[in-house]
């Protein structure tokens, strides 16, 4: 069994909604958006853990909470079994080196006024490496790791001179240069063309093999998650509905929501065009999530009143396959 790198316990993040002056006088308790509402999972060393769900399910918030780019409302995050939510910001820099992020949109996440060398060198400088030879050596090495070769060709170029796929490699390089143990990849390929997605994803797999880094891979694409991840958690309105080994979750989906998601994935084969059972409606507002099971308003297999009344617990059905649904309790 691999050792646990990140452990998240009952993590919550509520965003307050700012009210107008008059409404704030008459409202006693300001409303909150329950973006993440009590989730627990762990990421093992050298593992790609997938976090999937529709937009608004809280997956990006979760990624940012783990890196403490956002402060959690409650809950604990352990890194190598050390609790990191209570470490004061000024002492947090050493953890920042070990935990990095790759953002969704490589057209937005790279400073257009900086050359590639400076973009990748910046995290090193922040971490206090001042020796220019050392910085240069590591930037070149990292460019080779992300297969932007020969590195000399890229060092002095600006982001606008690169294609989308190359930019995302630069974003990977920027995360990797400080030799992190854990990287949050927030939909790293959703802005890229299908034909080059595989390059970036295979690069992630190679990095896991080569440097034994762990990834939290945030995605809405279950087909990609299936080929990439070891384990997968499905989120809906701030809760984990199902989690387990990726093969179990995809080939034996238990939660009606997971089934609905899988059913909606388009298949590049016209002969398998089926009469699809597509669930109705869209994800409800996280300000007033439905009572009981949050999915009951759209659920095709609703069991009865219990779904409206009581929130299902995440239970283990064997082989680390967890599901939060009254159908299984």
């Amino acid at each position: 069994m691999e050792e646990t790198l990140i452990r998240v316990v009952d993590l919550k993040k509520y965003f307050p909604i700012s009210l107008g002056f008059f409404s704030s006088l008459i409202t006693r308790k300001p409303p909150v958006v329950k973006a993440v509402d009590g989730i627990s999972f762990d990421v093992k060393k050298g593992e790609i853990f997938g976090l999937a769900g529709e937009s608004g399910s809280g997956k990006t918030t979760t990624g940012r909470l783990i890196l403490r780019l956002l402060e959690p409302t409650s809950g604990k995050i352990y890194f190598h079994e050390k609790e990191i939510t209570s470490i004061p910001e000024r002492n947090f820099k050493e953890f920042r080196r070990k935990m990095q992020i790759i953002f969704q949109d490589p057209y937005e996440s790279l400073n257009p006024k900086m050359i590639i060398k400076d973009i990748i060198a910046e995290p090193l400088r922040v971490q206090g490496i001042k020796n220019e030879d050392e910085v240069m050596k590591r930037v070149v090495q990292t460019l080779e790791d992300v297969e932007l070769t020969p590195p000399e060709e890229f060092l002095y170029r600006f982001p606008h001179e690169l294609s989308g796929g190359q930019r995302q490699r630069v974003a990977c390089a920027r995360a990797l240069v400080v030799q992190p143990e854990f990287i949050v990849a927030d939909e790293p390929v959703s802005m890229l063309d299908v034909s080059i997605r595989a390059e970036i994803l295979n690069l992630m797999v190679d990095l896991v093999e080569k440097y034994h880094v762990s990834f939290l891979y945030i995605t809405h694409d279950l087909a990609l998650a299936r080929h990439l991840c070891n384990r997968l958690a499905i989120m809906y309105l701030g809760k984990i509905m199902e989690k387990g080994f990726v093969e179990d979750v995809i080939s034996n989906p238990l939660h009606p929501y997971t089934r609905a998601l899988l059913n909606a994935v388009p298949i590049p084969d016209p002969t398998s065009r089926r009469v699809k059972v597509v669930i109705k409606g869209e994800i409800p507002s996280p300000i007033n999530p439905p009572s009981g099971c949050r999915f009951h308003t759209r659920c095709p297999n609703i069991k009865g009143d219990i779904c409206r009344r009581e929130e299902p617990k995440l239970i283990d059905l064997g082989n680390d396959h967890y599901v939060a649904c009254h159908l299984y309790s």
Partner: protein
Amino acid sequence: MPETVLEVKNLHTYYKILRGLVKAVDGVSFRVEKGKALGLAGESGCGKTTVALSILKILPPGGQIVKGRILFDGLDITRMEEAEIREKVRWKGISIVFQGAMNALNPVYRIGDQIAEAIITHEPDISKTDAIERAKKLLELVGVEPSRASNFPHEFSGGMKQRAMIAMALACNPKLLIADEPGTALDVIVQAQVLKLMKELKDRLNLSMIMISHDLSIISEVCDDIAIMYGGKIVEYGDIYSVYKEPLHPYAKGLLESFPSITGPRKRMTSIPGSPPDLLNPPRGCRFHPRCFYAMEICKKVEPAFHPVKTAHFVACHLYQKA
């Protein structure tokens, strides 16, 4: 013989920029039949949106159709006057749902009024009340509660906005609907809902469609024929079952293989190395040869002709040229 709604013949659309001419569409021909949907696929920058803009003659400044014909209902759109196109073609004949359509709604007008505006512009004789009534019927057709016509766009969810845009495109009973990336920017479940709606509309209204997407799985859900574009040219064209079952062009093969499957075996994903060609100076010969595994000497020099391999399946590749 099925009725042809639109026929594009040898279309060349170039953009003039400071550094020269961008050959965005360089000799494209295809046909759309009544009640059928054609998928136009390819990577970004391959010219698929430019084809759509050329058909409606709404190219941005600098863009120009330099050669070719676009026959709609027997009329050549490339030779029509602007006023004539506005009167006969746009909305009434051909309408378009743009990419990121949810941002195309005006935030300060009610949804119903926006749809009615399109109707009134193209049918000046209709009264405002009748136009609003029709807008409500259209919303019902696309699965939105008609009473929501008095809502503003911010009260609609992303999927509902996309539906409203489709309703608006159908406002003047067009024969052909062009949908540019109708699924992108939507969540999987909502995307599946929208695709299902488009398929139903196609069958119910006997509507012809051109669906533009880089995502072959979206095209496979709705379309009857597919044209795969690369660097401003169509490289493979044919019946969707035939093309997906047996893709011939190395680019088409690569595109189909780069799709992770939700059903088949788990494997390392494949991609097409390299990036799309610079259309200012496209490579000589076959435009795909710098990225092609099977490139031969001839591919660097001679542009492959487009020819049928079997009925309703065409490919432009030297590998299939009869020796």
